[in-house]
């Protein structure tokens, strides 16, 4: 059957199970949009292509399915760039499809011609320039395969307009030939036995649980390992949810704003079992003094991550699910009570400093607001966040019992991620309770997507932690630049009015006693709601490991009286 290139594209997307795409049309992708009308796919019209990228990314993170974003050539494609880099840093499977000028015009600086494959080369797992309709089916098949397998990541397909229009015989490729694409599968038994032996010999083991556990759906196997061999679990920002927060083995988040007792456990461990994490500088601090007594096992699917930052004793290459499944039969039951007792001591000391136990002093603290949101949502919401203090407080004070519920930009730290990512999450399951915990700075970066939310009738609850500052930068200025607040005070607009201008019900909350009612209002109002919390302006996130400092060298919150309740 002869089809146009654009029709072939949609035929292939249908076969990949694509139900929703996010994008904006323009000159160079109009044939794709025209052909779309014939296919059962829901298109979400965004207000800025960055929004489309984050939506597709949020969709992918929350579901494990490949997200899809569309943009036209030139500025449409370059507007995606921040979103592509965000997906790349966090190994999120997204396929980006951009229009490109006619093949015969390429290289001639035609109207809206940009070298998109060139620009996105270092921020995609792979990319393609398609100049003929005959290539489309093969390329789309490969792109989805590459995006979701191995260490997932974004793949971009740049399709010339002539290739969209040309008609050709549609043959769906039965096979993919990628001779150079061979992610490792699992580790050999000899290596697994070595790992089991190291685990057996350890007295103070810690599991470092990373995003890979969620991506590979291997968190149950990790939990089994932790329970069987009695090993505490420290999570990276993106590993949150891999261990239920209520599990006694859970140490919470590690790293720059990790729990003090969690970081201390890592620094005092004699064995680290790193699962699908990459020893980012935000979790290790000074590499020279990082976990100096610990042997290290590193389970990783991407060989270039092993020995990159931390030289390990035993690398196990492969898909986490496969490696852990193969490893578990060798792992013996064990108890490390002394080790847990020690950690418990550190934990008690940490609690004495924790803002969450502060009595009500009439001030509105972000940590308390987030804990109230946790209560109001029975801990079952999916949160998307911006980047900054509110993001760290969300990680610290919204304990998650399940994976795939904390959607946040980790590696890239992209402000503006929250609102669009939340909309993407909502499309994975419209009955999901989706919240955005945003900063007033982050929110304004992609605020335009409010109208997309309204146009889609999406039930997304937006809670802005409005400190009238670029808070995290302000905190660094306070700690490291003698409180010289260069360009961090933020005189935002009236967010309630902005919401109402979009037809979104909204409230402003300035006192602790208003929080409960506001959250009830959000829960009881169908559709989107915006809450503008005017929180304490100059609160700081604790503990904090200054960039490059030793992981145990944390700036701690001064001890204050504990609330009796």
């Amino acid at each position: 059957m002869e089809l146009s290139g654009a029709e072939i594209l949609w035929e292939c997307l249908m076969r990949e199970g694509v139900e929703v795409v996010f994008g904006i049309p323009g000159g160079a992708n109009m044939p794709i949009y025209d052909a779309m009308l014939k296919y059962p796919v829901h298109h979400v019209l965004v207000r800025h292509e960055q929004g489309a990228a984050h939506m597709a990314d949020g969709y992918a993170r929350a579901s494990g399915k490949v997200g899809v974003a569309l943009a036209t050539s030139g500025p449409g494609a370059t507007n995606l760039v921040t979103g592509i880099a965000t997906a790349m840093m966090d190994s999120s499977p997204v396929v980006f499809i951009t229009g490109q000028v006619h093949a015969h015009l390429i290289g001639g600086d035609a109207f809206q011609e940009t070298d998109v494959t060139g620009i996105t080369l270092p921020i995609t797992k792979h990319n393609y320039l398609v100049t003929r309709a005959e290539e489309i089916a093969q390329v789309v098949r490969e792109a989805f395969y590459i995006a979701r397998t191995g260490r997932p990541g974004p793949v971009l397909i740049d399709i010339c307009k002539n290739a969209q229009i040309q008609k050709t015989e549609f043959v769906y490729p039965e096979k993919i030939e990628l001779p150079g694409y061979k992610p490792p599968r699992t580790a050999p038994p000899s290596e697994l036995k070595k790992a089991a032996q190291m685990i057996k010999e350890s007295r103070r083991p810690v599991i470092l649980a990373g995003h890979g556990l969620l991506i590979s759906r291997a968190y149950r196997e990790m939990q089994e390992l932790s329970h069987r061999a009695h090993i505490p679990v420290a999570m990276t920002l993106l590993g949150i949810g891999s261990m239920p927060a209520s599990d006694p083995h859970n140490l919470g988040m590690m790293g720059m704003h990790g729990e003090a007792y969690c970081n201390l456990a890592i620094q005092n461990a004699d064995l680290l079992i790193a699962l699908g994490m990459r020893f980012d500088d935000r979790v290790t601090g000074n590499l020279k003094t990082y976990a100096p007594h610990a042997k290290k096992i590193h389970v990783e699917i991407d060989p270039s991550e092993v020995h990159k930052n931390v030289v390990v004793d035993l690398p196990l290459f492969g898909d986490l699910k496969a490696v852990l499944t193969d490893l578990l039969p060798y792992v013996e039951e064990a108890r490390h009570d002394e080790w847990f007792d020690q950690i418990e001591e550190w934990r008690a000391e940490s609690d004495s400093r924790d803002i969450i136990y502060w009595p009500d002093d009439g001030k509105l603290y972000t940590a308390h607001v987030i804990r109230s949101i946790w209560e109001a949502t029975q801990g079952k919401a999916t949160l998307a966040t911006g980047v900054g203090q509110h993001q760290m407080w969300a990680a610290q004070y919204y304990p998650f019992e399940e994976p795939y519920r904390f959607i946040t930009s980790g590696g890239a730290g992209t402000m503006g991620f929250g609102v669009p990512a939340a909309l993407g999450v909502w499309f994975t399951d419209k009955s999901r309770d989706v919240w955005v915990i945003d900063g007033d700075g982050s929110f304004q970066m992609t605020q335009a997507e409010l109208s997309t939310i309204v146009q889609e009738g999406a039930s997304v609850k937006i809670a802005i932690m409005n400190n009238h500052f670029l808070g995290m930068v302000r905190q660094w200025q306070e700690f490291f630049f003698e409180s010289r607040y260069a360009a961090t005070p933020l005189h935002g607009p009236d967010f309630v009015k902005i919401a109402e201008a979009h037809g979104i019900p909204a409230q402003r909350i300035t006192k602790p006693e208003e929080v409960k009612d506001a959250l009830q209002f959000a829960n009881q109002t169908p559709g989107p709601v915006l809450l503008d919390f005017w929180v304490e302006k100059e609160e700081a996130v604790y503990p904090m490991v200054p960039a490059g400092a030793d992981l145990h060298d944390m700036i701690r919150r001064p001890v204050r009286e504990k609330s009796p309740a």
Partner: protein
Amino acid sequence: MQHTLIALVENKPGVLNRVASLFRRRNFNIESLNVGHTDRKDISRMTIVINSDEVDARKVEANLYKLVNVIDVQDVSTQPAVIRDLALIKVKAALDQRAEIANLASIFRGRIVDVAADSVIVEITGTEDKIESLIELLRPFGILEMVRTGQVAMLRGGYEPVRHTPGAGSNGHHPEEVLEFD
């Protein structure tokens, strides 16, 4: 130490750019890079020489594998291999100097491939050392222009190639066995 890597890559547009971009992005310092055909139309061969420690050499290898179009990477640094470089050297040569230059070239099994009124072009193939030596001997005559291909390498017969990166060779996915998320 010097590491010599051989990479087999798909012969597709943009692959050289991907490799070069990788080296730039990861801050790897490349001594020389040579690209050429193989016996197969669909596969090109790169010889990459880097000056680095063992850890960095492994990083280069593992990162090369991250490129979808890179099929195979061997490290021949510690293996018996034939390693060659080719140079064309244009040397100032008055009439009475030609014989001497030809003589020098022939000692290194080089030869003169072009003669003009006041210059000659010497062609030489060999190891890096050998070429450097000839260049030093020709320098006093006045080198007008020079080009070198960079090293190409091939493992001697009867030896097994060394591949460090897991996933290389047989321990990898094949497209039929897609690892799905659920």
